[in-house]
């Protein structure tokens, strides 16, 4: 018994001692990014190449764009890699970012049940589709979490001249969670949902959901990357973070992004201006 | 340390008066037996003397000094309970526990503990867990644990209640040996036979009052209180 106890204690204590040192041998940066990039599997494809080249480990904390930018504001990340141009520019204007670089884009799609209660399947006009959903009061699952996707969704409602809050509690349902959980909810409720294509392609629990609207110019989804301003947060790993930013928008980084596919589908389209 | 003087002792708990003004002077030497029916207040009186309870009024005076509160006073006393608590460790470690608290080194404690275990006939069980010993063995171990401390006064609260006759005989034998070694014995019992066998003097308690404090012979031959007389009479047929 005593031996057992001390063994457990020793194990736990040794764990405690090792914890702060985990990965300390290797330089690393913390990147605040979005669930869409993490869950689509892009980082698993992208980061090992960068790490192999530079020896810099990238630790990704994946949240909604709103939360990710807040992480940058608090100084808890070195780099933010998100997709909400308006919010990103606000972040820059507040002085939390150094400079914003466009990295890549993909597109949003509207998914919905095969039964298609709003009769919008196959359409290419997202604004029209939104109007029909509201008119039919067909169930619609929204992120409701201030993420980039949520922001894009809300902009489209505005362009359609509809205040979805009037359908709140009825056909418009805010899940207040990430893209995956929202798709799970939509799948369970046979609701329409607005999602980025990357998450959709890697999403497994589709149930009856299919893509109903895609290809509208309005569905363009731009990703940007910024180094958190060391002037605001002196501990930011300026050089390592900048190295990551530079590499992502370099010819090599862009090619790695373009190479990422699920099956035959390319998920992200690099478009950095250099 | 002795004599022990009780001055107008009372004790009240939860509104009920359990000890109702007891004064007595207990001298060194004779084995004192606190006798009385169940619920008379014997155990409470003993806990007051040992300092486990604080009197509601009155004083307990040891050899002129006040109170049984301080740990130092208690170092010279020990107590064996009706249902002694066996610590979850070996018999030897149970005896060593009190000795180490009394400031003995480990090796001193072990030597002393083995000695007393030998005397109470538990030496061969020294390494066994105390809780797996029989009831009689546990009570002998409790005696050893108390005795090992070398107290001037040893309190025993119904030490043989719930024991079979053979175990009772063992215990009484050990109590006499402790007495013979010079330790003052103060014990409670409701058993007249045991009082007769072990007592030199009787403190008869009834309903929280001290009714008699007399040498053993006079108590049984000529009880002065009606309560004692009827207690003796009532109990005799079963002895």
């Amino acid at each position: 018994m005593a031996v057992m106890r001390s063994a457990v204690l020793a194990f736990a204590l040794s764990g405690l001692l090792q914890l702060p040192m985990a990965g300390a041998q290797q330089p690393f940066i913390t990147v605040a990014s979005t669930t869409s990039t993490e869950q689509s599997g892009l980082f698993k494809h992208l980061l090992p190449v960068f790490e192999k080249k530079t020896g810099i480990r990238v630790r990704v904390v994946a949240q909604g764009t709103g939360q990710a930018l807040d992480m940058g504001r608090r100084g808890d990340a070195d780099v933010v890699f998100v997709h909400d141009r308006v919010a990103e520019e606000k972040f820059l204007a507040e002085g939390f970012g150094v400079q914003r670089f466009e990295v890549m884009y993909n597109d949003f799609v509207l998914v919905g049940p095969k039964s298609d209660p709003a009769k919008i399947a196959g359409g290419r006009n997202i604004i029209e589709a939104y109007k029909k959903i509201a008119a039919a009061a067909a169930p619609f699952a929204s992120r409701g979490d201030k993420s980039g996707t949520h922001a894009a969704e809300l902009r489209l409602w505005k362009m359609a001249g509809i205040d979805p809050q009037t359908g709140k509690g009825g056909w418009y349902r805010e899940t207040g969670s990430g893209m995956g959980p929202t798709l799970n909810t939509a799948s369970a409720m046979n609701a329409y949902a607005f999602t980025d294509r990357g998450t959709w392609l890697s999403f497994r629990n589709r149930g009856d959901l299919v893509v109903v609207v895609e290809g509208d110019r309005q569905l363009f989804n731009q990703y940007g990357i910024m180094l958190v301003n060391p002037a605001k947060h002196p501990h930011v790993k300026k050089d390592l973070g900048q190295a990551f930013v530079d590499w992502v928008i370099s010819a090599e980084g862009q090619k790695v992004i373009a190479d990422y596919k699920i099956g035959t589908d390319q998920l992200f389209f690099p478009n950095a201006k250099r | 340390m002795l004599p022990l003087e009780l001055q107008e002792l009372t004790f009240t708990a939860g509104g009920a008066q359990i000890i109702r003004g007891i004064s007595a002077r207990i001298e060194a030497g004779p084995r004192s037996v606190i006798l009385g029916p169940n619920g008379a207040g014997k155990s409470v009186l003993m806990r007051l003397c040992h300092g486990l309870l604080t009197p509601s009024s009155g004083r307990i005076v040891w050899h002129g000094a006040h109170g049984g509160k301080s740990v130092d006073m208690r170092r010279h006393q020990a107590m064996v309970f009706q249902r002694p608590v066996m610590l979850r460790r070996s018999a030897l470690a149970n005896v060593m526990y009190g000795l180490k608290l009394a400031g003995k080194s480990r090796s001193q404690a072990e030597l002393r503990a083995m000695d007393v275990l030998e005397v109470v006939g538990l030496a061969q069980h020294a390494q066994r867990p105390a809780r797996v010993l029989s009831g009689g063995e546990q009570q002998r171990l409790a005696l050893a644990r108390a005795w090992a401390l070398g107290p001037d006064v040893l309190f025993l609260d119904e030490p043989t209640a719930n024991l079979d006759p053979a175990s009772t005989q063992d215990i009484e034998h050990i109590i006499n040996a402790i007495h013979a070694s010079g330790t003052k014995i103060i014990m409670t019992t409701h058993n007249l036979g045991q009082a007769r066998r072990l007592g030199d003097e009787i403190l008869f308690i009834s309903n929280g009052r001290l009714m008699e404090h007399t040498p053993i012979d006079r108590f049984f031959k000529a009880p002065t209180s009606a309560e004692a007389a009827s207690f003796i009479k009532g109990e005799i047929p079963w002895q």
Partner: protein
Amino acid sequence: MNSLGEAFTAAWRLIAGFDAELAQVVGLSLQVSLTAVVIATLIGLPVGAMIAVERFRGRQALIVLLNALMGLPPVVVGLLVYLLLSRAGPLGSLGILFTPTAMVIAQAILITPIIAALSRQTLEDAWREYDEQLRSLGARRITAGMTLIWDTRFSLLTIVLAGFGRAVAEVGAVMIVGGNIDGVTRVMTTAIALETSKGDLPLALGLGIVLLTLVIVLNALAAVIREMALRRYG
């Protein structure tokens, strides 16, 4: 719906083909939660013992508070620790947000009240039995407390395991303060949450089954120890 069947298949595949990534996630789960439980025990047990043995003003209020804190939502603890450890927070300069250390802190905060409150109950029951005997033998409060802890060690082991179970199973706190960083702070529960997000429910449930199996094995081990010890020590 055949998800449950798929889940068990997935769980079996995970266990049978114990790959390095899973091993790392499981290892980190154990490391973080065991460390947290050791810290919580080192703090919670003495606190529980103190409350069990001492009588002081506000004791009852403290017991009520501890019992209430047993139901502390992990997300709230996570948020508090996050705000403390964030660069913009009071302990930001430590730079330990999004590390296993932060997860240990959050879990330790979460389960210390559990260990303190439950051990208080156990020790107080024991104290009722031991009080007079220990005082008679001349034990002072601290010694008495330690004796109680040692003598109830097998019951306390169950309590510690309950704390461990809570720590290893919670997701809210470690998700926030750890960030679920692949290879750094990803543990069983956050991995499950991630797979759920990806809609890979069988894999998520499979991971859940692996986690459950681990907890069951640990508890069975403790039960065996306890049983053997009770038979031996009475």
